[in-house]
């Protein structure tokens, strides 16, 4: 049976790691363990949860910086920020819901270590664009810091970015500082129905290249909408193209006029204002609903050059039992596949990206499928060995989340 620890402070954590090094133990590290379904099974003897090392350490809204312990619940942070009309601009989704219907949104440490980002990605970046500094504990049992608590900093290597998205495989992050930004006062969206895929993607591209500062551009095909049961789309059984404007009421109303002009004549337009607009984008942000990702389904996220979206979508349309939607102005495809045909489909999709045309990360799958196709696409041999050398430079004995991202050869 694995042992489960939830240390209260960094000293306790350090003691654990030091004993672990001496005892040749391996650790599975998590915040609240909401995203355990991501990656390979670590097969570690000891589970460490960071959720007791929590609390906001510093926050002065005018500095645009917050500093918090890694185990602080993301929801606490979002609540405090919203009291000051600020937010995490990278819109972290609740990915836990892909794996568990009742999942919370996890911890701030988890949000950064998973490099989360939402529909605003193409405008505001991902978690990696907002990290400013970390305090961390390496697999060598050494505490170190990188970065700082100010917005602009090039003092030393940016190890904070390297850790962001490393899923706990390089170090255990104990404290983070990150950029926070004013939240838009309000949001307005439009849904355009009746466009075919090609027309919709062309329109998205045109709007993304406009001066309208659009902060959400998504496309959901009717075939995906058919499978879900949610109020927002109760009347819609047609392909939907969604566009979001955010900002002050005045700015939105002016830009809405310009947007309507820009899209004139393309399909039927429905408006979603304020609350309705916000809940609409929750659906895009948290992918579990649209992907109806039940138990055995596989979830793949492709990040692509937007101009290639049409050809990839043509492939998707030929797959049976495949739910998908486009987000981030054509740069992302969220895809859900049934277990039976997932392996072939994933291989086909990755094939189409093999010349550095994009990425395709397997977010969820039964473990035999993960083993078969890998969490990530195949890397060049140079990049593979560099990746291993980087892992070794932080965690030479491979005690932190061993095998979570890359299986040992």
């Amino acid at each position, binding site marked *: 049976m694995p042992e489960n620890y*939830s240390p209260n402070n960094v000293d306790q954590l350090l003691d654990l790691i030091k004993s672990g090094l001496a005892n040749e133990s391996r650790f599975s590290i998590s915040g609240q363990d909401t995203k355990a379904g991501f990656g390979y099974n670590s097969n570690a003897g000891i589970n460490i949860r960071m959720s007791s090392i929590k609390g906001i350490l510093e926050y002065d809204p005018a500095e645009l910086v917050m500093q918090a312990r890694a185990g602080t619940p993301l929801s606490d942070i979002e609540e405090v920020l919203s009291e000051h009309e*600020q937010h995490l601009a990278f819109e972290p989704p609740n990915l836990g819901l892909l794996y568990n219907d009742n999942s919370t949104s996890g911890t701030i440490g988890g949000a950064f270590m998973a490099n989360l980002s939402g529909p605003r990605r193409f405008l505001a970046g991902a978690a990696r664009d907002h990290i400013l500094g970390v305090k961390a504990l390496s697999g060598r049992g050494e505490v170190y810091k990188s970065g700082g608590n100010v917005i*602009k900093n090039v003092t030393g290597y940016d190890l904070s*970015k390297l850790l962001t998205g490393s899923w706990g495989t390089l170090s255990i992050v104990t404290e983070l500082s990150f950029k926070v930004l004013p939240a838009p006062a309000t949001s307005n969206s439009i849904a355009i129905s009746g466009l075919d895929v090609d027309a919709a993607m062309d329109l998205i591209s045109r709007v993304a290249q406009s001066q309208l*500062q659009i902060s959400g551009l998504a496309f959901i095909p009717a075939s995906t909408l058919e499978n879900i049961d949610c109020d927002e789309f109760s009347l819609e059984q047609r392909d939907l193209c969604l566009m979001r404007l955010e900002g002050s009421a005045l*700015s939105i109303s002016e830009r809405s006029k310009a947007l309507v002009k820009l899209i004139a004549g393309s399909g039927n337009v429905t408006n979603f204002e304020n609350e309705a607009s916000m809940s609409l984008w929750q659906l895009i942000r948290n992918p579990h609903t649209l992907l109806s990702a039940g138990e055995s389904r596989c979830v793949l996220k492709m990040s692509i050059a937007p101009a290639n979206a049409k050809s990839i979508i043509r492939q998707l349309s030929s797959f049976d039992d495949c739910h998908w939607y486009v987000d981030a102005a054509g740069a992302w495809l969220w895809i859900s596949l049934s277990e039976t045909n997932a392996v072939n489909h994933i291989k086909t999709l990755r094939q189409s990206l093999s010349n550095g045309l994009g990425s395709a990360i397997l977010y969820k799958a039964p473990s035999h499928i993960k083993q078969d196709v890998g969490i990530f*696409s195949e890397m060049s041999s140079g990049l593979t060995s560099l990746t291993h050398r980087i892992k070794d430079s932080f965690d030479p004995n491979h005690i932190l989340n061993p095998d979570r991202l890359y299986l040992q050869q």
Partner: protein
Amino acid sequence: MKMPTPDLSVLASRDELIHELGQFLGSEQIVIERSALRAYESDGLTAYQQLPLLVVLPENTTQVSKILKLCSKMKVNVVPRGAGTSLSGGALPLEDGIVLSMGKFNRILDVDFSNRCVVAQSGVTNLDITNAVKDKGFYYAPDPSSQIVCSIGGNVNENSGGVHCLKYGLTSNNLLGLEVVLMNGEIIRLGGKYMDAEGYDLLGVLTGSEGLLCVVTEVTVRILQSPESVRALLLGFPDNEKAGQCVAEIIAAGIIPAGIEMMDELAIKAAEDFCHAGYPLDCAALLIVELDGPAAEVEELIETVRAIANNCHSQSIRVSENDEERIRIWAGRKAAFPALGTISPDYYCMDGTIPRKQLSYVLTKMTEMSRQYGLRVANVFHAGDGNLHPLILFDANIDEEMEKAEQFGADILKLCVEVGGVLSGEHGIGVEKRDLMPEYFSEQDLQQQQRVKCAFDPESRLNPGKMFPVLHRCAELGRLHVHKGKLPFPDIPRF
């Protein structure tokens, strides 16, 4: 400045190296003559000079790879160089090292509007990227003041910013892909025309790595549509404190201007005398606040900022009504460094970041130090993100004044660290701030950074003597002392 002791056997192998390089490079690609090497003896930090062993000018990635392989084999150090505008001595040559100049990597490879990105060789200048896309209304956002000359590869290696990075981010936030060559000659491609690469964020750690990890040969950056409207306010204040307060209140009101620049009294006066931008001379501090976006939004924000400025006791408010007026508002700021050059034989430009709330404390302290050192200091800086650029005025012809200026500079940076800030906001560590690193980092912090360096360049051939005050051998850094025998697990809460 102490640099690593040159390896005499490398100096002795210079002819052999020239011969070997000649096997795959044309003679015009190898600079040998002393007089020609002079052009490379320093970068933007001209206080330090060193003639390199040789300069090589590769034309393509294969040549870069061969050069690095050869240098690995012959134990020759390599200093990568873009346009040589680094202000921290990052491209300072080494006596026993070649300078690898990216000067011939000057082609834009792909302008891709539908994917909103540009692919360029790393020696292309920052401004040429914008120039290549501006006819369609696009631009590349990071805009260092050196943008006419500095290279995009240099920008990646310094994670350069500019006056607009508060809203649009630094180089790292606008970078999509790289082609790089490791010291062992391996060519690696990272990312591309898409946003989220798989695996570890190597783009993230390479940005700002100051030529110590790899040679960047190709860069993919995203481009943005130019905003519909851009307007600037020029705000004058009776003291620095009120100007600082105004910056804090603008941001607290939920506004992220495209840029907020601040100038102090000495800088205002010098700039006004130099280029007559119409700056109010009765102010002790000036703010330039630039707002951009959809026209209606900018209009609204201008009024909000105006009200905030009034509240903060602004003495004078000027708002640009057209682009000409906006450019005039910026003229003095843009000319501030050369302007200060006219009132002092030499100046030394510092670069640290502080939490903005410490601004008035730091400025007051700096005035005290200025008195102690007997050297004037002018301040021109990116107020929105707390990135200070104090300019220390001195005369290198006066005995020891340069040493005094350096000492003063070091004290300013220590002060930045003391109030919760950092040693560099955008100019990098290089040789200039190398020995100050322990002011900010512990030995353990620095060792972890060096271990990452070892993963890329295990023999430490790339740009040694920069960034790290002490160079450890990788074997020594990699050693892990583990307690022998089992240890009982401590008594820690379980779940």
